[in-house]
């Protein structure tokens, strides 16, 4: 399997552990990552301000992938939705496609909208498969009880094709169990991490992350597994403030699935960037008998 690798800005600018761990584990599972040298932002952050700028940025990445004749592998939920929304938008509005192609032609690019865009969850679950992942486990996570967080943009809106069911996603749990750990349901499982609100209502956003984390703590979970750098920023990075705002303990080890997978495949925590996580992942590691 060969993919054009699109880690997205957030992973490259501050969530290094996601890219680091993805680059460690994916090739081991037969997923070859080809770098996208001319990459730009997926456009999502500017969509509300300038829909055309968004369409151009997202369209340019898709057009490069089409030129390279490779499917895109995306780490970030936001980037994934951005590309899917654009694919949908140019089907609805042929005028938009024409306009984009006019702009892209200056670089000799052409957009058809036919390139496949896959989130790392889909690549692992649907293409690599649970069985192959089970076979790759060197150090079973047997005994760990973990919770999953999908992130809104990965499963919504339900009217667009998304990697898993909007109301009852199960793929991440299946992937966690493939490593030997068990999974815990919790009432706030589909709740937002708060990130969507972070720029405008910071305190409320962090409270949302805190509610979610405390709901996970109540289940006695050993850790929370995420798939999106924005969710990670909130759930991993804002625990101290959330604790202050809510006045209750919200401490939960949080890590990317690619980090968890790496641990089960026998990589050292530092090789997976676990020293960059801000939540108390040491607790999870010591539960596994691993030290940083």
């Amino acid at each position, binding site marked *: 399997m060969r993919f054009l690798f699109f880690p997205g800005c957030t992973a490259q600018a501050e969530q290094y552990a996601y890219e680091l761990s993805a680059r460690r584990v994916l090739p081991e599972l037969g997923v070859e990552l080809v770098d996208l040298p001319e990459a730009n932002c997926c456009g999502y952050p500017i969509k509300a301000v300038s829909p055309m700028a968004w369409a151009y940025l997202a369209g340019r990445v898709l057009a490069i992938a089409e030129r390279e004749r490779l499917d895109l592998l995306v780490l970030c939920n936001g980037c994934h939705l951005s590309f899917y929304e654009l694919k949908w938008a140019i089907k609805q509005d042929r005028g938009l496609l024409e306009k984009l192609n006019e702009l892209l032609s200056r670089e000799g690019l052409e957009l058809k909208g036919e390139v496949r865009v896959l989130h790392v969850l889909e690549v692992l679950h649907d293409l690599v498969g649970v069985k192959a992942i089970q076979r790759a486990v060197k150090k079973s996570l047997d005994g760990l009880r973990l919770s999953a967080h999908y992130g809104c943009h990965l499963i919504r809106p*339900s*009217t667009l094709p998304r990697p898993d*069911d*909007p*109301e*009852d996603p199960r793929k991440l749990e299946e992937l966690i169990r493939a490593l030997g750990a068990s999974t*815990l*349901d*919790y*009432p*706030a*499982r*589909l709740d937002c991490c708060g990130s969507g609100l972070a720029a405008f209502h910071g305190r409320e956003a962090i409270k949302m992350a805190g509610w979610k984390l405390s709901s996970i703590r109540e*289940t006695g979970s050993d850790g929370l597994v995420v798939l999106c750098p924005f969710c990670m920023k909130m759930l991993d990075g804002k625990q101290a403030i959330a604790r202050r705002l809510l006045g209750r303990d919200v401490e939960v080890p949080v890590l990317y699935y690619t980090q968890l997978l790496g641990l089960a495949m026998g990589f050292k925590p530092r090789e997976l960037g676990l020293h960059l996580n801000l939540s108390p992942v040491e607790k999870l590691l010591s539960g596994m008998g691993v030290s940083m």
Partner: protein
Amino acid sequence: MSGGGSKSVLVIGGGIAGIQAALDLANRGLRVYLVERQPSIGGRMAQLDKTFPTMDCAICILAPKMIECDRHPNIELLTNAEVKAVEGSAGDFRVRVLIRPRYVDPDRCTGCGVCTERCPIEVPDEFNMGLGPRKAIYIPFPQAVPRLALIDDRYCVRCGLCERVCEAGAIDFSQKPEELELHAGAIVVATGFSLSDASVVGEYGYGRYENVLTALEFERLICASGPTRGELLRPSDGKKLKRIAFIQCVGSRSLRPGHKPYCSSVCCMYATKEAILVKEHDPDVDVVIFYTDLRAFGKGFQRLVEKAREEYGVKYIRAKPSEVREDPATGDLLIWYEDTFTSEVVEKRFDLVILCPALVPSETNRELAKTLGLEVDEHGFFRAADPLISPTDTHVPGIFVCGFCSGPKDISECVYQASCAAERAMEVVLGAGR
């Protein structure tokens, strides 16, 4: 085999509307063929515990009418049967009816039920909405008409135990589907309704959470002849229920994909009825009805709502819950909603959540419409020639519709529409009387 003539009327569907039409026609001396797809007549009303707004026992009203149909010299019941083809025109319809085998000889079976006791195969009981088991040989429900056992071919393993224990010698595995040709001067269609799939509204968790039920499932749960003999026990753990929520307009009054835009017209009132029933079982149970608009439009309806609120303490909250989530540790359900009177956003915990899904026409309507040459609307309801001034006429002379199959209505509306359709059919068969 054939029968009937121009003084005969075919009634399709043996629910309350079909039964009423059949009795009216038969009492005027006409020959009636009452064709029902299920093995017993009775329809949805037979599954209900009580009726609104009078809180009468549903089966107590219905059963005498069912028996009257069975005993009436002018009515021939054709149960476990379907209309396959119709030819001809008003005054002279030729109808082919397929009667599926029961594998039980109706002339011998006494309805004693010994075969059912001995049958080793247990399957979900459709009459109890799958909440309890039945056997592969079974009598659909205690008041079934005809009260005859039948063998469900999908599950029977032909072990022959029923054959051995049946003292009447009624078991007959050699039965084959039978086709009947009838002549009828007019046709009355009354095929009723079913429930839409409540799992369409994914955020309410129907099908995922054991303690989320549909209202018809709950109607069976609270009914004395239901799977728990009317005890209010929670499906997941048998715990006594203390906090119950009803959610209205589930999959209806919405333009979301898979939803129905129309109002099902009976849910506000049956939820009120069911809430009162809960309170009569146990006044300490907390009952909340989440509604969109409270549509208590019929005679005595508003009074019943007031009674539920004032005398029984049922809480009505105007809110469209955004989500039902399960607390996996307890099986309790947490409902998130905004009270649109107070603008408060609240999370409330319940033992059981009851969904009131969109009511939809029978799934066989479209096929039947083709057979009869009728029109259906975009939802599958039969189209009346003019819903305002000839609500039971269709575009085909001699064929009439009544009851829920032409649009949402409650029992009393179904009954008077049935009498209306019967009257219109009589005009065709007996002549207009000029």
